């Protein structure tokens, strides 16, 4: 199977990928409710995958899943939870601070949250 290099569920990866796709497609057609539902599902699966990748000794993939989890939470409308995940990632992946902040800035620019203090919150964490 395609993810044989790490002991991570191939089925979990597939379901997560498809949930991301479903969410993005729903967002594209303006169906906010469906988009939020699928983004949340994908976010939770990504959080599981991030832990699994960490345990499997793949910090690069753990970082990727963590960024995806936070991005999915943000786009589901849960910016507060996304902020928490980003802050945790800054602590667990300090060498990737610039990369993490770049994703935050992109979300703030493309999917602004009214009254959001994410940038300053992450900066002070």
């Amino acid at each position, binding site marked *: 199977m*395609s*993810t*044989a*290099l790490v002991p991570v569920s191939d089925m979990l*990866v*597939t379901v*997560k*990928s*498809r949930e*991301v*796709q*479903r969410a*993005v*497609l729903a967002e*594209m*057609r303006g169906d906010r409710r469906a988009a939020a539902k699928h*983004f949340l599902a*994908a976010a939770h699966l*990504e959080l599981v995958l991030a832990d699994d990748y960490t345990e499997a000794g793949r910090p690069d*993939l753990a970082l*990727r*899943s963590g*960024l*995806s989890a936070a*991005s*999915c939470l943000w*786009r589901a409308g849960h910016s507060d939870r996304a902020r928490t995940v980003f802050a945790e990632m800054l602590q667990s992946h300090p060498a990737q601070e610039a*990369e993490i902040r*770049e*994703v*935050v800035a*992109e*979300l703030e620019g*493309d*999917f602004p949250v009214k009254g959001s203090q994410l940038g300053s919150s992450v900066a002070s964490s």
Partner: protein
Amino acid sequence: MDVRLRLRNLPEMHSHLLWDTIIPATAAVLGETGATAPYSVGLTIQDVPGFGSGKMRLLLDPGRLSPDRLAKLKRTYEPSRMVEMAAIAVAGLALHHTGGHEIVDLALRGSRADYLVDEGRLLLEIAGRSRHVDFEAAWQQKEQRLAKRGGGFYVCVTEFETPAARLAFFA
């Protein structure tokens, strides 16, 4: 070299992804070029593992799609979104044909999708543009973005005016 490929085979080539919307969207985008099926897409390949470099012409068979389904799709999604979806299809076909490469994962990264290819989990950036004139800018943007992240990566950009695509691997 001409290569005939069927859009309906994409789910077998890349079984981790959903294709039920992307396939008709691709057919709709290619159909709007004014050409008739099979739709021709010029493909330039650069340093792709298992293939190398070269040029070919993809002849894409859209399969049987009802006019009602296509019309509904066009009403549902903006043209730019349809082009994004069609670019994913072209990338999937090109990767599969040039060495049997498979997209094995899709994640979100800010506002963009982030793809991984094969067991080596190499990064892939995909872009689609409706105009030929926008091709090079899209290519540069994608290449520079992934170069910052390091490691081997793929870039595949398609413009649907000519239409033409380029798939490259950067070690």
